C-alpha cells in the first residue's frame, strides 16, 4: 500500500522502513505534527475529516506524478484522520531515490501538493473551547486546487 488513510497513530518507522532499498542512497521522511501555536492562537487538538475514496485516489495520483518527474524507488503517504492530540503525527511522506536531491524534491512536492489537492480537512480545537475549520482560501499561503 503506497497511500493510506488511518484512524490510529501512524507508525512512521514502518513507513520509512518500507521505502528503504539497496538501490537507494537517500531516504527523505516528512512528518506533519500537531503544533501548539499558530501565531498567537493556542491549539489543544485537531480533528481531521476526509473524503476517503477521492483522498486515496489523489494521493496515488501525486505519487504517480512524482514518479514521472524524479527517479523515485519507493514513495509512501499515510495521513491520519480523526482526533489528534498535540505533537501527534498527522501525515507521513517517505521517498527513496538513488540520490538525495531527488528524494528531497519529491518529498517536498508530495506534501506541498497534498495540502492543495487531497480532500482532507482540519478542524482546530482552540484552548478557549471553540472549534474552527481551517480554510486555506482565507490564508495567504495557499491557493485552491486547480479546477482541472
Amino acid at each position, binding site marked *: 500500500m503506497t497511500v493510506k488513510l488511518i484512524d490510529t497513530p501512524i507508525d512512521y518507522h514502518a513507513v520509512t522502513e518500507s521505502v528503504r532499498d539497496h538501490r537507494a542512497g537517500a531516504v527523505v521522511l516528512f512528518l*506533519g505534527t500537531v503544533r501548539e501555536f499558530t501565531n498567537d492562537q493556542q491549539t489543544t487538538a485537531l480533528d*481531521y*475529516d*476526509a*473524503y476517503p*475514496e*477521492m*483522498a486515496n*485516489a*489523489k494521493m496515488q495520483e501525486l505519487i504517480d506524478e512524482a514518479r514521472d518527474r524524479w527517479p523515485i524507488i519507493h514513495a509512501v503517504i499515510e*495521513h491520519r484522520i480523526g482526533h489528534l492530540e498535540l505533537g501527534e503525527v*498527522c*501525515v507521513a511522506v517517505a521517498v527513496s531515490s538513488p540520490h538525495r536531491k531527488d528524494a528531497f524534491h519529491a518529498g517536498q512536492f508530495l*506534501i506541498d501538493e*497534498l*495540502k*492543495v*489537492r*487531497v*480532500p*482532507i*480537512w*482540519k*478542524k482546530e480545537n482552540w484552548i478557549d473551547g471553540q472549534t474552527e*475549520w*481551517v*480554510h*486555506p*482560501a482565507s490564508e495567504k499561503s*495557499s491557493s*485552491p*486546487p*486547480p*479546477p*482541472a
Partner: protein
Amino acid sequence: MNVTVKLFAQARDLAGTSQANLSLNEEQSVKEMLASLIDKYPALSQIQGNLLVAVNNEYVSSESLIPANAEIACFPPVSGG
C-alpha cells in the same frame, strides 16, 4: 434527475447532513447544482464562494455539466497535512 451530493467538513456541518439529495434538470452545470444546493441548505451561503465540487473523484469547474450516475461531492478548500 435525482443526484446525491456528498458533503464534507464545514459544508457538512453547515448543511447538517453528509448527503444532500437534489432534483436537477438534465444538462445542468455545476454552478446550477450549487445554486440548488444552497437553496435547499441556506447556511451553505456562508462559504458559497469557496465551495469546490468533485465528480467521480476529480475537481470540476463551475461550467462543467453534471453527468448522470456520477459520484458528486461538495466541500470547502482542503486543509490536510
